[in-house]
């Protein structure tokens, strides 16, 4: 379980004819255990795509389906990692991670076990009793990822999750996410404006047009990643030096730049 399908999905704010057209006929399928990144110029509606899957926003036309069912409301089967972390400041790290499990009605002993695993997975063992404001941004985002992962959601939605982090922390988190994806593959929809990040992390990269956004093209990264054996490199910078990586990155850059230029003129 864990597929996402956009079927000609559109989003208009306000009146259907005169309102603000954010998205226009987005069609994209994300298969089970696949990691898809959406990149696009600012304001193209990529975050709106994610918010429709999460159930935070309704679809104005077309459909958004998760596991072949139309999305109607937010739910724990679609865990979200927000750019600004969105941790509950009055709950400790442990309580933040545990909260969704309690909502699911999971027994205390089982919860303790799952939370301990999640803390270990994100190397947060020694911070279980800390409050979010006592942690660095990178640490807070680890907590947010743990909070999402612990629910064993069928899809994981990440909205520029590393956008609020400094460059060094971001690199560590990107490597961490690749490690996680290897240990525990998931269906992931990842929104970013970082092309390198998208190529490094995703199996496929979907490029969006300027507003009203639609999918311009989808680029396959996985076949090249497998062929060139990117996963054998431990460090992100080694992968980023590879000719195959540079080639893909440049291709996506050019495609994006066309949109940015078109949007500016």
């Amino acid at each position, binding site marked *: 379980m864990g597929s996402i399908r956009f079927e000609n999905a559109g989003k208009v704010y306000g009146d259907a004819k005169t309102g603000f057209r954010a998205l226009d006929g987005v069609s994209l399928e994300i298969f089970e255990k696949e990691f898809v990144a959406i990149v696009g110029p600012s304001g193209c509606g990529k975050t709106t795509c994610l918010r429709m899957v999460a159930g935070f926003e309704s679809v104005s036309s077309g459909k958004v389906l998760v596991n072949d069912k139309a999305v109607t409301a937010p739910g724990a089967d679609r865990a979200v990692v927000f750019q600004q972390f*969105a941790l*509950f400041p009055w709950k400790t790290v442990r309580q933040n991670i545990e909260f969704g499990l309690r909502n699911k009605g999971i027994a205390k002993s089982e919860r303790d076990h799952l939370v301990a695993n999640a803390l270990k997975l994100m190397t947060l063992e020694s911070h279980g009793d800390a409050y979010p*404001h006592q942690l660095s941004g990178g640490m807070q985002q680890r907590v947010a990822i743990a909070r999402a992962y612990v629910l064993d959601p069928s899809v994981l939605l990440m909205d520029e999750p590393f956008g609020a982090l400094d460059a060094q922390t971001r690199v560590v988190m990107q490597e961490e996410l690749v490690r996680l994806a290897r240990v525990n593959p998931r269906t992931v929809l990842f929104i970013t404006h970082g092309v390198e990040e998208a190529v490094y992390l995703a199996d496929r990269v979907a490029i969006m047009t300027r507003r009203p956004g639609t999918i311009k093209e989808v680029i396959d990264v996985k076949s090249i990643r497998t062929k060139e054996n990117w996963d054998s490199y431990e460090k992100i910078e080694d992968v980023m030096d590879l000719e195959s990586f540079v080639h893909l990155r440049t291709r996506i850059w050019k495609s994006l730049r066309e949109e940015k230029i078109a949007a500016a003129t």
Partner: protein
Amino acid sequence: MQPRLSFVETVVYGFIGVAAFLGIWYVLPTTGLVSPQFLPGPVTVAERVVVLTTQPFAGATLPAHIAYSFTRFISGFLLAALIGIPLGLVMGWFRIVDEVVAPLFDGLRFIAPIAWVPFAALWFGTGVGGPILIIFAGAFPPCVINAYRGAKQVDPQLIEAAEMLGTGHLRMMTEILLPASVPSIVAGLRVAAGLGWQSLVGAELIVASTGVGFMMVQAQANVATSTVMSGMVAIGVVGLIIDMLLRRGEAAIRRRRGMAE
């Protein structure tokens, strides 16, 4: 912006204000500008306060009257908080409840606590229910309004985070809206306590047979001005202590949240 004052400066300036006030109060009756019978000096009032701690007036000593008043205050205040805060949160979460309750509440809010006195007198006479009803009338609106505002001002992303974690309505209110609204609620409690305490003494002037307000009205009948003023001093000091305690609570909560004070 004016520069921030150090603790010592704050104390010194505060002291200057109090000293000036006491000075004028002292000078007026001693120089004969105002008859000491109408305005006893601070020393006379202080002496009277001391006497009243042991010697009963209007059926009880001053501390006993304060205790009566305070018990009523706490009852009415807690009742207002226990009903008002949940109501405010429910109104903040369920649009429909907001729509139903808001017009009624807004209307009732304009009936000043003291305007409840005749009604309370009819219902309870001088029984304990009267003052409690009046304190409740004073303390209830700030409890509701601040819980409501707090709930409305929760970071929408925290609500979204809770929603995607599968949070139900009840838990949304108790574990998300309530803690997120605590700073607003505590600010509301401070206002509620102030209004409640002020209303109480007004109520006791009429619908009670004990308490600081009752003592004052009895003293007025005896033209015992120093006793009337002892009551005023007691009201001021107790009110100040209540506010100080709530302010401390507020600061402690803010510190725990890592918020600026």
